[in-house]
């Protein structure tokens, strides 16, 4: 599904990703953990096509296509989704119009006609119930005045609407209360399928109790330094990152 090889990326003069390797097969859920500033969000942004970053080396293969050749819109339409660590507020654009443009963008890419108003609203209803997104939030401006938790729920709602092939969730659990965490995790689990993959970035093992990963990777200083199964997350929770820096890297 996704094959990242020796990926190097920098912003301005600063190199942040320093040769990152990761292969994700269809249906797999991978978790990435790592200290603040290690490059997790940078990886997510580079995958989503943010132009602020310069890719200085390596390759990303997405369903046998060169992901790095596509612009952000095309990546999304081809089935990549990024749930932002900090979702963006767009005053004056209603959530629902925003989503319809997104859904129609994808449909256009697939050679389909724009979705009918009624079908769209039914889809919204169905997907919003998946993450228990309050009906009022759908009609408000995109993320404007949403609480931290509501923003994260909205990200998952958008993901459910767009039904991506590969979703990157960047700290979707931070800022969620215990109930919301369960709701969001259930939403993600409901979408797990043999032909859909996830990359879950998190700081807390707790999320992985709900969304059980196939693999856990540790990202330190722009590289994946250690990979394991879900038990690795437990070990990290208990021991922190220092032992990795000392034992593994040294």
């Amino acid at each position, binding site marked *: 599904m996704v094959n990242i090889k020796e990926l190097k990326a920098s912003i301005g003069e600063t190199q942040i990703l320093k040769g990152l390797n990761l292969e994700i097969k269809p249906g797999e859920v991978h978790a990435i953990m790592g200290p603040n500033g290690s490059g997790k969000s940078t990886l997510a942004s580079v995958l*989503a*096509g*943010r*132009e602020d970053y310069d890719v200085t080396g390596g390759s990303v293969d997405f369903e046998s296509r060169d992901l790095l050749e596509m*612009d*952000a*819109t095309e*990546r*999304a*339409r081809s089935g990549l*989704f*990024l749930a*932002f660590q900090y*979702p*963006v*507020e*767009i*005053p*004056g*654009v*209603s959530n*629902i*119009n*925003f*989503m*319809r*443009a*997104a859904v*129609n*963008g*994808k449909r256009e*890419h697939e050679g389909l006609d*724009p979705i009918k*108003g009624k079908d*769209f*609203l*039914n889809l*919204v*209803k169905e997907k919003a119930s998946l993450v228990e997104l309050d*009906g009022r939030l*759908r*009609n408000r*401006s*995109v993320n404007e005045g949403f609480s931290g938790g509501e923003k994260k729920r909205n990200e998952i709602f*958008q993901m459910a609407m*767009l039904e991506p092939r590969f979703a990157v969730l960047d700290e979707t659990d931070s800022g969620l209360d215990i109930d919301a965490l369960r709701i969001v995790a259930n939403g993600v689990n409901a979408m797990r399928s043999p032909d859909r993959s996830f990359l879950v970035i998190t700081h807390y093992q707790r999320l992985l109790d709900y969304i059980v990963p196939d693999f856990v990777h540790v990202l330190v200083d722009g590289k994946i330094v250690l990979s394991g199964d879900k038990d690795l997350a437990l070990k990290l929770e208990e021991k922190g990152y220092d032992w990795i820096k000392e034992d593994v890297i040294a």
Partner: protein
Amino acid sequence: MTGTAEPIVMDLQRKPNIHPATQAKGEALLAALADLRTGTGLATEYLKELPVPHRRVERWKHTPVSGFWTTYEAPKVQTIQAAGCEACPVPGLHAYRIVFVNGMFDAEASDLPVHSGVRCEPVSMIASAPAEAGNLEKSDWFAALNQSHATEGMKLHVDKGVVLDRPLLVHHHTHGQKSANFLRHEIQVESNAQVQLIHWSTSNEAASGMVNIMMQLDVASGATVALDKVQDEAGQVHHLAFEQINQAQASQVRVHTGTIQGKWVRNDLNFRLDGEGCDAVLNGFFLPKDNEFVDNHTTVDHCAAHCTSSEQYQGILYGSSSGVFNGKVFVRPHAQQTNAYQQNGNILVTDKATINAKPELEIYADDVKCSHGCTIGQFDEEALFYARSRGIGESEAKAMLVHAFIGDVLDGFAVQEVRMEVEHRLATKHGWDTWNDTLESA
């Protein structure tokens, strides 16, 4: 016309500020116009004294007028039918209508109000002395040009307490090349009366020349007037619009100016709040493209206490277009407890687009609340990326942000049908239709 205090606008102009070469252009224009119609009245004297606008006349600093120095011809078309244009530019609008084509009244296309307490006639059909010059005509060369050359326009009188049952649409259409159109509308709304006006300007693709429209609006105490102004002129027309609005005690006036298209547009909107407890609202948006030019000069003159004024202008400039916003707010010494708000936001879509924006607040009273803000920026890159990451194309994402940027102002048209038609025309011009229609929540 009432008022005791001398308007400050005039003081600026009183210094002789003649630029000989430009003055000669102005005189040449007068000579060219003389073949079509001769200027009359006192204003011809003002024309001799006033400086023809050039770069060092403060209110024309960023407003190039060279497009006016050309030749003009008598119009060939005098009716909306001959012009092949709709008499009512707003489909489904149930309104009274007064239609002018190339500066002439089109009786056939008009549907004048038949309503007790309302008199509405074209100026050419009434034998009365022409209106006195207002302050603008004494201070501005192009306004004086209007007064000396306008022989047509609408005269509207609404009696005390009358509520006009439908909006009144004033439609001006320019058809053909090199026309010189002057209109002068005089409107008096007596106390506690209520009226909704729509002022719509159109022109055909081949049109050129000038349109110079003056509106004098006197609003007596407790009266309410809404004016929705829409400018959608194709071709090469140069459009000058002057409004002088005088408000008496506790009157309410809102003017909403939307410039959809126009090669060259100058709006000169002036409010004078003469009685206590007035409320003035002035909103506008402009979205010039290519090398269009749009200028909004506004003045709100707070002459009495306890008045509020609220102003919001939003501009989005595409291509190599340019714009001017100048918002003057005067608060006179007696105008205590004034509440004046002004906001002007601009987005430059390309690096070739330009805007000259200047808020000017002069406050001579001490117990007032005045705020203003002015922004000039690009598109919000974060929001753009967020939209693109959802599979929304870049140009559509931009259209979405544009719509959001002017949304508040768009919503503020007094007449719902006008808002919808404006939105439709903007959508056509900017390719918004794909996402724009709102959904009912299920």
